[in-house]
């Protein structure tokens, strides 16, 4: 296999990793060295699915001893050819691409070849060539493999800008079911370790920079690289298991507050391999993913608390209005907001005013009074915002009843899904179509409490697998049991038995989140 063929296989295998950002670190260039990094990152291309290509996203190898049900590289999938880059090949490819301005850096992940430590050593080797031999100053994002020893993670952290550990699935039970080789322990331990190392590294750097005396301090003998200066991120699959948006958002809020994650990515489940435990439907929960990302933005940039976005009674985000509009509709007593005096936090709560718009308003209103024309000129979505603001006392949405139902009708908008893909509007909802059966794939009802029963059907296999007490699981579920025993023989040391199987619950609905809000 030549390098191009390898690249084809290994890029194809890595494409389901959604995290692809090059942001979070500012590093200027250095004379005689290749590369620099920018705080905001840079997208160098966009694939036909509209996703950005910023890093060379590849796997070190797609050979894997793990057997995660949802993964294209699972050990039992015989249909994909297996291959691996040598560290040198990978480094040369990265440099060649970077010099042509194709990419911003490298995103390196890997299947588990043999054991996690050995795989990580290969990755470290490739990164060493890049950083030390070639003096590469571009962006490197590395995915750590659950089960890697902490010493190797330290080494990875010093070579990369961002580390990430995939959470994969939102609850302990789902993880045990679909990714039998990974466990809460093997995922959260490296995450905590990265969190602590980043914090410690930042602190020591601040201390080293602070001048405590008027005398010039001795410089550090050798400058070490910062430990993952762009922090860590994670991702989880949405829709392969029956967890609600409530559980998912609470988990991500806990990750942001407790482990200082930079991003939590969501990946709508795509059936790539057939497995009896996975929902057989071909529908992609792209709209649900979209709403979850909107909620995620509210958590990170708009100062929302997770309890304001979603509660236990309505565990799914509303499909027809975005979470921010939904909050506004439920808190009409907060509105209208006076744009000429309201603080930033209040402006950020107004549907139609985003972070950029709110900042522009603050800037512009220092010198002039803002009315409708001015707001339109600033480029905020006046059409949506008008119902929730006053401009120097004048209410913008007069003529419309200031009630939940009337405003809901104004604010609800379908998600723009394009005209060609799966989300394309082929027919108006509720309208009968001649070609429905042939054209549209069976749609998994998403985010609608009324359709929980249908969800239950889709996840019936998982429910059955979880129902009996854990030790008897292998007997209850023939196929799954065989698969696991085969794997045990292959790589016994990679299994992490500890927390999963002693206390598997009898009730599926009580899926325990990997991390909960303290």
């Amino acid at each position, binding site marked *: 296999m030549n390098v191009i063929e390898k690249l084809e296989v290994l890029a194809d295998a890595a494409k389901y990793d959604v995290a692809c950002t090059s942001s979070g670190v500012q590093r200027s260039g250095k004379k005689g060295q290749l590369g620099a990094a920018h705080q905001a990152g840079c997208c160098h291309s966009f694939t036909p*699915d509209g996703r950005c*290509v910023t890093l060379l996203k590849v796997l070190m190898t797609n050979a894997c001893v793990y057997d995660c049900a949802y993964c294209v590289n699972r050990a039992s999938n015989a249909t994909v050819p297996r291959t691996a880059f040598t560290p040198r090949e990978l480094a040369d490819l990265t440099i060649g691409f970077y010099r*042509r301005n194709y990419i911003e850096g490298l995103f390196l992940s890997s299947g588990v070849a043999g054991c996690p430590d050995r795989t990580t050593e290969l990755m470290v080797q490739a990164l060493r060539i890049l950083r030390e031999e070639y003096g590469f100053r571009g962006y490197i994002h590395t995915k750590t493999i659950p089960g890697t020893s902490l010493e190797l993670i330290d080494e990875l952290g010093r070579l990369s800008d961002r580390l990430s550990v995939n959470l994969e699935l939102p609850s302990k039970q789902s993880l045990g079911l679909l990714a039998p080789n990974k466990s809460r322990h093997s995922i959260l331990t490296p995450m905590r370790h990265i969190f602590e190392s980043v914090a410690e590294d930042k602190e020591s750097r601040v201390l080293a920079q602070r001048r405590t005396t008027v005398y010039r301090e001795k410089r550090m003998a050798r400058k070490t690289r910062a430990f993952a200066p762009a922090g860590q991120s994670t991702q989880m699959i949405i829709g392969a298991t029956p967890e609600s948006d409530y559980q998912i958002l609470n988990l991500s809020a806990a990750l942001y507050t407790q482990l200082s994650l930079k991003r939590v990515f969501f990946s709508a489940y795509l059936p790539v391999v057939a497995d009896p435990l996975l929902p057989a439907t071909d529908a992609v929960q792209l709209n649900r993913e979209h709403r979850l990302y909107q909620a995620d933005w509210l958590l990170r940039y708009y100062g929302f608390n997770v309890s304001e976005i979603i509660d236990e009674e309505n565990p799914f985000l509303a499909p027809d209005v975005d979470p921010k509009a939904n909050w506004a509709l439920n808190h009409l007593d907060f509105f209208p907001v006076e744009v000429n005096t309201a603080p930033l936090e209040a402006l950020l709560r107004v549907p139609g005013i985003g972070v950029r718009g709110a900042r522009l308003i603050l800037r512009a209103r220092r010198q002039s009074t803002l009315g409708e024309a001015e707001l339109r000129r600033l480029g905020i979505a006046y059409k949506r915002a008008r119902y929730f603001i006053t401009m120097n006392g004048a209410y913008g949405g007069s003529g419309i009843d200031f009630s939940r139902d009337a405003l809901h009708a104004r604010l609800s908008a379908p998600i723009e899904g394009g005209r060609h893909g799966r989300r394309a509007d082929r027919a108006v909802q509720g309208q009968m179509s001649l070609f429905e059966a042939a054209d549209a794939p069976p749609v998994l009802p998403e985010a609608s409490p009324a359709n929980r029963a249908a969800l239950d059907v889709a996840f019936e296999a998982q429910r059955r697998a979880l129902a009996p007490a854990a030790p008897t699981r292998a007997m209850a579920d023939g196929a799954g049991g065989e698969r696991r025993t085969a794997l045990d023989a292959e790589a016994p040391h990679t299994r992490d038995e500890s927390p999963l199987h002693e206390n598997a619950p009898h009730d599926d609905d009580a899926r325990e989140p990997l991390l909960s809000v303290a």
Partner: protein
Amino acid sequence: MHRANATAPASPALVGAYPAGADTSPFAAGSPHHLPLAAVPSAAPDDIYDEVAYAYDGTLEGLLSAIFAAYERHENPTDVVPESRLQPRLGQRVAAIPTNMSHAARVLRGVKRACGWRAAHAVKQASCSDEPDAGTAAYRFVRYAMDEQKRRNCERCRKRSSCPGRSGAGPCPKMRGRALSDITHPAVERLFRISRSISQECEHLRQFVRFQHLQGESVGDDTGTEVWFARVNPKASVVPLVMDHFVERLGVQPFIIYDEVHELAGVYDGGDWHLVATAGQGDLARALPDPTADEALFSEAWRTFYRSVSVDARYHPELRRQFMPKRFWKNLTELQESPAALRTARS
């Protein structure tokens, strides 16, 4: 060409937002019929309605010189446009403004001092724009910002005693950043928009420049230095604004970014970068040396990568077009057919 304008310069508050002469017209304020003849300013009517357009050479220095000239001649030009884009209005006088480096430096320094470096940068960006009214927008903004400085009210300012603006030694530091942030003012809004669109175009260039590795031209025994060449087609002449970015990250390789629309090449020779105007020299790309041996390999690898990272189930071409406008596609390596595939298709 220059005619001294006998009317007093327009009142500062209105300059920029209105055409010259409109507010100084004796007929504008009250009913003209009741005015005694003596009350009409002595200027001849053709001076009152005198409209002038300044034509500059299209460079930043030219634009700044034009702004300087407006102050020097006590005129308020309706249009400040590059010569190449000039379309005189009916009855409009055209004044060609020669570029003067020292004038340009003075204006830029003044703008920086009075309105801050952001405003100076916005003026620079406007000079790169292809919009026909970019020069006018920059001129109006400078007029407005400078007048704001004059109009400031220091009465309740707590720093009055130590302010350089009060003693006349310099501009008021509190006003400095403010000119550009009054975004809803018509004199600022246009420049703000132009500046934003130029920033976007710069970002597009940072994203979509694709270098090719070319062999050096061999002269005798000397094989020459290899060069990395990129062709771009931006909407505005932004190559000068992105050269620093590329020099910073690709400082180890000499490269050329050739803007085929504006016939301008940014050339980095390994030490410093220059701009070379290539107008009248034909298509630069024809004179290029051959690509190096590994160029085909890497571009093929990139195409392969691009093909394989796409997830078919998420197909959404509108989204791609939104982020990556089609006008860039002709120079993007990943969206071109590979030469090998073309050859097989032909045979």
